[in-house]
């Protein structure tokens, strides 16, 4: 197998009010189907290695995880090396279901924003209430970051993980760094 290459080769910038780092490669499988069908969620749970998340939530453990994407879509996360085996297993289990599973690992880019001002960096770019009491770790949100679609969750209170299309990786990296540039701190979430 050829060596996996991420969009930005693991670029990182820690010069601003938060650290922006490209992650990965990360194994990602999009699963579409009727989430009220037991066989579908059972197969997803087996592949993700975590319990089924509630609406707009995301469960992760190590490299594994499941994120709720829409009423008929899940994102299953795993080690990049295991994605082919996981996908084959998933497709086998869902052979008789009206469901679709696709490996999207190389079609996405993954970033982490970390530091005490992570919430502020995200609040500058996405129409999401980032108050610590409103958007808590475990919640999953599909939204936009400036001009591009992306999804993210809080790994912990000071770390956000963001997934976007690979084709806009450079844009998102630059935009996150602009929102985090030195001297741009508003202190919105540290005031109250």
């Amino acid at each position, binding site marked *: 197998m050829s060596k996996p290459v991420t969009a930005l080769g693991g670029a990182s910038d820690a010069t601003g009010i938060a650290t922006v780092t490209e992650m990965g490669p990360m194994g990602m499988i999009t699963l579409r189907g009727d989430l009220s069908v037991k066989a579908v969620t059972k197969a997803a749970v087996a592949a993700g290695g975590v319990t089924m998340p509630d*609406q707009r939530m995301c469960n992760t453990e190590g490299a594994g995880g499941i994120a709720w994407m*829409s009423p008929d879509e899940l994102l299953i996360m795993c080690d990049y090396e295991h994605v082919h085996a996981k996908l084959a297993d998933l497709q086998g289990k869902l052979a008789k279901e009206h469901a679709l599973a696709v490996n999207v690992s190389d079609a996405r880019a993954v970033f982490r924003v970390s530091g005490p001002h992570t919430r502020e960096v995200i609040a500058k770019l996405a*129409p999401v209430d980032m108050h610590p009491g409103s958007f808590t770790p475990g919640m999953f949100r599909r939204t936009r970051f400036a001009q591009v679609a992306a999804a993210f969750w809080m790994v912990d209170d000071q770390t956000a993980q963001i997934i976007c299309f690979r084709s806009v990786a450079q844009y998102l990296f630059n935009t996150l760094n602009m929102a985090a540039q030195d001297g741009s701190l508003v202190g919105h979430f540290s005031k109250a």
Partner: protein
Amino acid sequence: MLSIHCPNCGITAEETEFHAHGEAHLTRYGPGSTDDQFESYLFMRRNPKGVHFERWRHQNGCGKWFHVARCTMTLEVFGSYSAQTYAPPQEILDHIKDRRPGWNEGTT
């Protein structure tokens, strides 16, 4: 700026996370219809100053379609409802009549 609620995923966000797609509940005239019917389906829209029913999509979110009832003059949003319907549900109509006592469905 509008604050829109998506009934598919339950998110309420400002309008830039969504996209408006024009007047709702159009009758789709196709083969067998008259030229006038087809023309009205393609080109003629109500464009009212007041209560308006619209199709919206959660473009940067869950990706699903839904309906929104809002006022084009004050930008008040009366509510969202499922895309899988041919007409606004009664609770939305009741709420609009509550907010716009003189409003008559079908005249706008």
